[in-house]
């Protein structure tokens, strides 16, 4: 039992030691931001990474499907700017939505606020996922 426990700890240490370098850690966080779950995949947490890769972009796209809006960076309106930062948290999906000019939102749609909530929360959840990848990379988990 003790041997199994030691082996597990050793494996975890081996897995995270490569990411302990600051430059590598920064790249892990960048990858985790651009593609939700990529940081976990990079660090060998495949099961978690695959769930995030599927779930978070899907949640963001569900928000677009519900006619939610990708908020603009309007610093004159702090809440709108904060929502924009939250939207941006989902990474490449945000850039793809911008490039395809989707996510303009339909204010009169019954599901508009639901859509906004889905998109904002998807981005915020990815910020948590990035922090988790950072902790794993630092060897804290």
């Amino acid at each position: 039992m003790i041997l199994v426990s030691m082996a597990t700890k050793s494996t975890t240490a081996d897995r995270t030691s490569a990411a302990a370098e600051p430059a590598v850690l920064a790249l892990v966080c960048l990858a985790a931001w651009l593609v939700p779950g990529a940081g976990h995949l990079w660090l060998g947490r495949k099961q978690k990474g695959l769930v995030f890769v599927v779930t978070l972009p899907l949640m963001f796209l569900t928000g677009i499907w519900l006619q939610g809006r990708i908020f603009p960076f309007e610093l004159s309106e702090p809440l709108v700017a904060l929502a924009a930062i939250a939207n941006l948290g989902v990474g490449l999906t945000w850039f793809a939505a911008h490039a395809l000019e989707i996510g303009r939102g339909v204010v009169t749609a019954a599901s508009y606020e639901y859509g906004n909530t889905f998109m904002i929360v998807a981005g915020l959840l990815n910020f948590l996922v990035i922090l988790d990848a950072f902790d794993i990379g630092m060897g804290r988990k």
Partner: protein
Amino acid sequence: MTDHFLLLALFSLFVSVVFGVLLRDEPRDQARLGGLMFGAFLATAFVLGWLMYPLPL
């Protein structure tokens, strides 16, 4: 789609899955936490919905 309860359930599902996987390492624990969170989301919505039922007075 305008079914508010279905949207609430869908939102709860996404959030529960992410938190369950994020906060636990073993698949069994992840499923347990995710299921608990999902149930808590729905139960809270039911309770708050019925509490607000008589409003406005």
